[in-house]
């Protein structure tokens, strides 16, 4: 059906002419703005909430510590391949970077922001943050600067509301812990399609 | 204070003792009670089955019957819900609408009348028995009657109250649903009856005779030794008169 007819049918059923001016969108009254909790409290809450959804949260002092942790993990587990975008790489893991998420044991991503209330990382999938790294390998790691942790989902959607359409990436993923399902006998199982393990390093000095 | 009893169709033909108990309790509380003889049925069975014109016919007669009432007190919450929530919509305009709204504003379910209009804080009632209570759907969800009835039971001396598991679950009556979808209704009332028996209570108390008739009928079929009573009957039976011992 063509666009005019499709939309015209809707207008006719609504029993009026097409509206030139859009009526205002009803807004939720968010109440008095709560005092912004301090960074430490936000990070603590983020770590607690991520743990509640079976993710692993690690607070580290700086990026070097996070990078060292990834190298240690790869060594302990005998990883053969890492999916890590060029923007995120450092010499210590260069040898392991295969560039092929399908062959990787572990995928690394940089989060743009994180949400404390739900243990969520916000992945802004521009050229520096491919989607597959947090999706295809069986385990996924994410670096989050502590300063980017916000209290709740509404703080993210408010920021996204301020972004002009052309500046949005083709995909944004909000990821909260490992993949899960209740579909087999209503018993929870992890890693059904997405990563069964998610580790988030929250970097304090960033 | 004056109140008119709304005895309901079921109350009139099947459960007259419940109407008698409501009158007794209200009079004991100092309310003068009359019974407008023009009342028959509020029209809920027709309305809930989609027979709007037929329901309107019953509703008009019902509004006429209670024209002169100061308060109307019903033995069943679902009938009050019908009057409050659906009567104004049945008569959308004019004088009929005003009369429907006026009746809705002064019609009460029994326990709600005691709690919210009379503001009862204590009851001279003794009733020594293990008792559980079913919360009727319409009474709970449409009239907002939730903690009131249990508060009233809490004022009764000697009463051993056993909370009912899944009290908020529908008993499966649903008017013509009990007959149109009889097999589903049967499963729902079976679950309810099983929960009632699990409490070990000797008496099941309720606020709506259609629910009590339904659950009582299933309990009886199961051979359960559980008496089924309206809240008003517990209060009336146990009322301590002149220093008496109650029940």
């Amino acid at each position, binding site marked *: *059906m063509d666009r005019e*007819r499709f*939309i015209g*049918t*809707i207008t006719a*059923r*609504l029993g009026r002419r097409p509206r030139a001016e859009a009526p205002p*969108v*009803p807004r*939720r009254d968010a109440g008095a703005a709560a005092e912004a909790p301090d960074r430490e409290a936000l990070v603590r809450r983020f770590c607690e909430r991520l743990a509640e959804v079976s993710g692993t949260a690690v607070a580290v002092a700086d990026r070097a510590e996070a990078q060292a942790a990834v190298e240690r993990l790869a060594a302990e587990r005998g990883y053969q391949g890492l999916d890590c975008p060029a923007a995120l790489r450092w010499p210590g893991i260069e040898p392991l970077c295969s560039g092929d998420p399908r062959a990787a044991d572990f995928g690394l991503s940089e989060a743009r922001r994180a949400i404390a209330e739900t243990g969520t990382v916000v992945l802004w999938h521009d*050229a520096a943050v491919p*989607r*597959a790294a947090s999706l295809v390998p069986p385990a996924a790691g994410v670096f989050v600067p502590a300063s980017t942790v916000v209290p709740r989902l*509404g703080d993210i959607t408010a920021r996204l509301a301020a972004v002009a*359409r052309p500046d949005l990436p*083709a*995909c944004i*993923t909000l990821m*909260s812990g490992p993949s899960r399902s*209740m579909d*087999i006998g*209503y018993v929870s199982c992890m*890693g*059904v*399609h*997405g*990563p069964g393990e998610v580790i988030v390093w929250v970097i304090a000095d960033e | 204070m004056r109140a008119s009893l709304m005895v309901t169709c079921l109350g*009139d*033909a*099947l459960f*007259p003792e419940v109407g008698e108990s409501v009158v*007794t309790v209200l009079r004991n509380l100092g309310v*003068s009670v009359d*019974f407008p*003889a023009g009342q*028959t049925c509020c029209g809920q069975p*027709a*309305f*809930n*089955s*989609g*027979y*709007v014109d037929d*329901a309107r016919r*019953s509703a008009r007669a019902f509004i006429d019957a209670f024209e002169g009432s100061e308060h109307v007190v019903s033995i069943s919450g679902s009938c009050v819900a019908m009057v409050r929530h659906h009567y104004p919509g049945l008569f959308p305009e004019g004088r009929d609408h005003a009369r429907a709204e006026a009746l809705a504003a002064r019609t009460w379910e029994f326990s709600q009348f005691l709690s919210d209009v009379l503001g009862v804080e204590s009851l001279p009632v003794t009733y020594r028995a293990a008792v559980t209570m079913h919360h009727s759907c319409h009474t709970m*969800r449409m009239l907002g009657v939730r903690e009131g009835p249990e508060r009233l039971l809490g004022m009764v001396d000697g009463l051993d109250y056993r909370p009912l598991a899944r009290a908020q679950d529908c008993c*499966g009556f649903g*008017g013509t*649903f009990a007959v149109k*979808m*009889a*097999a589903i209704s*049967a*499963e*729902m*009332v079976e*679950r309810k009856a099983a929960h009632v028996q699990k409490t070990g209570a000797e008496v099941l108390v309720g606020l709506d005779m259609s629910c009590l008739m*339904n659950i009582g*009928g*299933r309990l009886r079929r199961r051979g359960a030794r559980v008496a089924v009573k309206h809240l008003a009957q517990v209060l009336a039976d146990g009322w301590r008169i002149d220093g008496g011992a109650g029940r």
Partner: protein
Amino acid sequence: MTANAERERFDAQVAKALGDRRLQDWLEDFQRLGQEAHVEAMGELDDKEAWRDALSELRAHTVANLDRYVDEFTANVEANGGRVFFAGDAAEAREYVLDVARGIPTKRVVKSKSMVTEEIELNGALEAAGMEVVETDLGAFIVQLTGEDPYHIIAPALHLTLEQVRDLFSRESGEDLPAEPDVLAAWARRRLREKFMTAELGISGGNFGIASTGTVVLVTNEGNGRMSTTLPGTHVAVMGVERLLPDWEGLDTALTLLTRAGTSQRISTYISAISGPRRDGDRDGPDELHVVLLDNGRSRILGTKYEPVLKCIRCGACLDHCPVYGCIGGHAYSRVYSGPIGAVITPLLEGLDAHAELPYASSLCGACVDACPARVPLTELLLALRADAVQSGLEQQSWRAGMRGYAELTARPAVWDAAVRVAGALAQPLAPGGVLRSAPGLLDKWTASRDLKTPVRRSFRRRWRESGGRVDDGRGS
């Protein structure tokens, strides 16, 4: 299916569900656990009634201005490099998706669960064209293998036990798998991984469409939604036209309530906000994005007393709270949508004459209304459908006559009085104990499982009249 055949199907499915004791116990447990979790998740909100009001108003506003939002959404999807197709009905939607698929060309399709694609019977059309269609949501994968319709709008395989899934996967794999969810899930993951990697086309639904930026939002937990919309070269998202939101602030309201009400989660594992096909420089993502906006009877609901049903965000909370669903399960309600929302939307989309029994499959208890985050007035809508059924002459003549007769009786108090007296007199010899254990005709539907209280000899009005109003034994005033 004719109305009679549909009623027979309904009765048969109800009987099957009620006769399955294991299923009855399981549905009771499932609802009890689900309701407790729902209360806890919703209880975390600072003012859950205010949130529900906000969602209700937002969705009502969106539906009342749907023409404008469809226009805005379309312009923005196209500006993002996507394409929008306007499907007036199921056939148009199927035809378009087939065209896209053939044009690639497509041997294999991976699908993320979408009730709307069930509604339009898309899988069959693709398969008839020689394509392999793979449901990748674990629950949808399971019922695809069993050949059944979904049992619940969120949990399609709710009715199957662990052992049944074990048997199913063992047959499918040729291996002797244990009845362990992790092992079974791991097998499904291995089996489906290869499909994701080789499919030319990924089809998803759409939980929401944000009009202000042309963004399709997918809410999932397993990762198959992400896989299906990232790996294949083409992504088709099929959405009901009413599933739009004005902007990102509205998304906060919708997402906050969607998972808390429906799955008792603070948030789902993955939320994907898709604004067009991949951009230059993106390492992954589809080259083409098509959004199919489906009418299929939705616009007919606009401007009628049923318009509030379009506020629904398909969270599933009403199913989890409905005592009738808790007895009859999902298959009784017809192919696609079950529970209270199914009882309302199916007759509206497919015709009340084809589903005359669905609005009556409810005791009007209102548990669904209490649970619905968008405040869809489900019991009011069921009552309206029943009134329409009567108006359209769908009710049996015997019921109509009975209701008319009863109404006449209630309008004549003197006749009522006499009728009650007669009933009371007749009941004495028939039911000496005041109770009947078996009764003729329609009443046997009651007495099959319950004793039936019968009319008493002296009605209340008679006692009042004969005692001069002293029914309290004269104790009161």
